């Protein structure tokens, strides 16, 4: 980080706006700022630190409250705020940092608090307020700033500062390691340790997952077996079903062919049964009629009626016999008459002899007489008997006439259907001629059995189908889990990664130690060279660095030299600062507050020569009147880009800073 410019407004002793240009030209890395004691050199130094980190320290390293950084006269004049603006560059980026503080007044008009606002622009881009500290620490970490914004009043005791385990010593040690870049390696080592821990956890997790994965594999195998069994059963049942359906189809086909016969058989069976039932019913009804007649007729009339009926029947029989006999006699008479006409026998067709002709005439006469006799009406006549019977029946109307009539109606109804049914049965019988009724029945039975078998197989298929579907569903879930489970190749990679990270961690641990030792040697070597170049003594062999980055002076005999000299301590501190600047991971501007306070002319001249030659930018806040020896001054001035002088203002509380006119 290199400083470009600072603009202060009402900051500490600086009244109004004061501007200092820190930019340097190539070959002239020095900015000199001269001032009397208590005029504002350290205040300018404080302004830089306050602007960068928002903290101001007094000479005893104690924090100064912001409200007291406002110039007294400005406050008295009613101005309530002060500001420091710092321009600087880092890695080709340009920064403008502005910190403004507004001071509050209490009722008595005294300072009672403050509010600070900070603005940072990088390459003209505004940085958010919360990110500003990170950006500033990236540019120049506050922890290491003590060696670049060096207050020599503090660092003069550097040797004793690092010789204990105090907080200050730890901070200094940490700052030096930061400057040397050691934390970068430590962070890699720590990252490797974390990687080992992370990968270990991942491996443990994967082991657990692998265990679950094995269980999954076992479950998948079981489920696959179940699925396979279900599938086999399903396929067998399906094949059986197909066979049975085929057989059923055959039966159905056969039955279809004789379907009509089958129906006819059934119809015939039904009709016969109906007929039989009707006959039974008729018998039953007749018996019921007889019972009813027996129960209801009046006995005397009943006897007469019975007598008349018997007479009627006898007469009817007689009439029938007479009618038949009459027909025979008429036929015989006709034959005999024909025989007489033809003179031939009606039976043998032989010529009739004379006696026979006579006999025939007699026979004709007898027959004629008999026919006349038989043609007379019967006494009593059949009609009269029927009328008599009807009359008697009407007279002796049975008590159960209605019942009997009803029974007779039923009989008539039953008898009415019977001829039709008989005719139908007859027709069916004709149609079924040549049909084997047993075969039809057998086929029907077979088909019924087949239906039952198919039903059982269908149930089996449904059961196996459900099992198969469940097995497949379960397998899908298990397979998805299995696919989500880590792959063994990944497990191998993580194990290898852990092994590598673990080994690298050990190597980096060793590397940090080696690098620290190496950097210490470098700092020690650089500090020794710088110390040698700053002094004129040749009794000191080297500056030796210890574990705490403390520097001890070792004489030519190899003994630690306890110098007890403030000047030597200052030279050692400057040697360390310059050695660190030379060894640092980054190059930075050096701002040295009163670097020559305890140095003799020789050492001062040597420091100036060294800074002129080796630094990129050195801002030296020096006391007015500190003389630069005439031997080096002309050459030194060539390396000074600018010289400022801090002057007292019109009031002792005011200072101004302005370019010093070169004499």
């Amino acid at each position: 980080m290199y400083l470009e410019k600072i603009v202060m407004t009402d900051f500490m002793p600086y009244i109004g706006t004061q501007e200092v240009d820190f930019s340097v030209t190539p070959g002239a890395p020095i900015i000199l700022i001269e001032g009397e004691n208590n005029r504002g050199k350290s205040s300018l130094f404080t302004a830089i630190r306050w602007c960068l980190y928002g903290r101001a320290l007094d000479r005893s390293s104690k924090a100064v409250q912001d409200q007291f950084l406002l110039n007294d006269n400005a406050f008295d004049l009613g101005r309530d705020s002060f500001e420091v603006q710092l321009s600087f560059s880092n890695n080709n980026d340009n920064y403008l940092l502005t910190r403004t503080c507004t001071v509050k007044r209490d009722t008595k008009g005294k300072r009672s608090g403050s509010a600070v606002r900070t603005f940072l622009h990088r390459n003209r881009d505004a940085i958010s307020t919360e990110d500003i500290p990170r950006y500033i620490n990236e540019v120049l970490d506050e922890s290491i700033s003590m060696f670049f914004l060096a207050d020599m009043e503090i660092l003069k005791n550097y040797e004793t500062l690092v010789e204990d385990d105090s907080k200050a010593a730890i901070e200094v040690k940490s700052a030096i390691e930061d400057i040397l870049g050691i934390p970068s390696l430590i962070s890699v080592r720590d990252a490797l340790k974390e990687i080992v821990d992370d990968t270990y956890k991942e491996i443990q997790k994967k082991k657990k997952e692998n265990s679950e994965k094995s269980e999954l594999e076992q479950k998948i195998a079981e489920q696959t077996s179940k699925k396979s069994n279900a599938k086999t059963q399903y396929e067998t049942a399906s094949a059986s079903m197909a066979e049975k359906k085929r057989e059923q189809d055959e039966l159905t086909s056969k039955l279809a062919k004789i379907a009509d016969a089958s129906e006819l058989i059934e119809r015939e069976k039904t009709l016969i049964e109906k007929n039989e039932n009707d006959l039974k019913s008729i018998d039953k009804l007749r018996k019921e009629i007889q019972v009813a007649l027996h129960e209801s007729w009046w006995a005397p009339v009943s006897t007469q009626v019975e007598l008349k009926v018997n007479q009627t029947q006898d007469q009817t029989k007689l009439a029938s016999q007479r009618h038949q006999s009459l027909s025979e006699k008429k036929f015989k008479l006709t034959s005999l008459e024909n025989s007489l006409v033809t003179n031939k026998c009606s039976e043998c067709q032989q010529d009739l002899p004379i006696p026979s002709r006579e006999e025939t005439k007699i026979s004709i006469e007898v027959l004629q007489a008999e026919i006349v006799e038989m043609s007379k009406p019967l006494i009593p006549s059949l009609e009269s008997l029927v009328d008599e019977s009807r009359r008697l029946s009407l007279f002796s109307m049975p008590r159960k006439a209605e019942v009997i009539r009803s029974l007779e109606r039923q009989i008539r109804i039953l008898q009415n259907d019977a001829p039709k049914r008989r005719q139908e049965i007859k027709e069916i019988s004709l149609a079924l001629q040549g049909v084997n009724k047993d075969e039809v029945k057998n086929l029907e039975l077979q088909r019924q059995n087949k239906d039952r078998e198919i039903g059982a197989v269908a149930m089996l298929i449904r059961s196996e189908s459900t099992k198969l579907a469940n097995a497949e569903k379960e397998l899908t879930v298990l397979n998805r889990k299995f696919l989500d489970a880590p792959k063994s190749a990944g497990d191998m990679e993580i194990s290898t990664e852990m092994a590598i990270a673990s080994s690298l961690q050990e190597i980096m641990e060793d590397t940090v130690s080696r690098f620290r030792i190496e950097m210490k040697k470098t700092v020690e070597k650089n500090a020794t060279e710088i110390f040698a170049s700053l002094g004129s003594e040749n009794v000191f062999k080297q500056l030796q660095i210890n574990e705490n980055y403390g520097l001890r002076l070792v004489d030519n005999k190899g003994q630690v030299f306890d110098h007890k000299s403030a000047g030597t301590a200052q030279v050692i501190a400057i040697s360390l600062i310059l050695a660190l600047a030379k060894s640092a991971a980054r190059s930075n501007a050096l701002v040295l507050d009163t670097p020559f306070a305890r140095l003799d002319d020789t050492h001062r001249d040597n420091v100036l020569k060294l800074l002129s030659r080796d630094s990129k930018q050195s801002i030296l806040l020096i006391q007015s009147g500190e003389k630069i020896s005439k031997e080096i001054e002309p050459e030194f001035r060539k390396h000074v880009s600018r010289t400022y002088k801090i002057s007292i203002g019109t009031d002792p509380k005011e200072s101004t800073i302005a370019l010093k006119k070169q004499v």
Partner: protein
Amino acid sequence: MSSESKELPLEKAQQAAIKSLSSKKDDASETAKPYLDQEMLIGLIDIASQSKFDDSPLVMKQKIRKLIKSRIRKED
């Protein structure tokens, strides 16, 4: 005004790492040995030297894991 960024003194760090590798490699696990070489160490020092202010420890860890994994896959 010129500016310079030396960052981590790279060569010194690399030298230290390579020396550590020589002395520690024999103690490393057989699994890790094939991957422990200068290339790996230089890669690590690069990550250390390139770490920016906004690189969180997590980012650095990711970079290192990436380096290790790429080496594993390269060897495979």
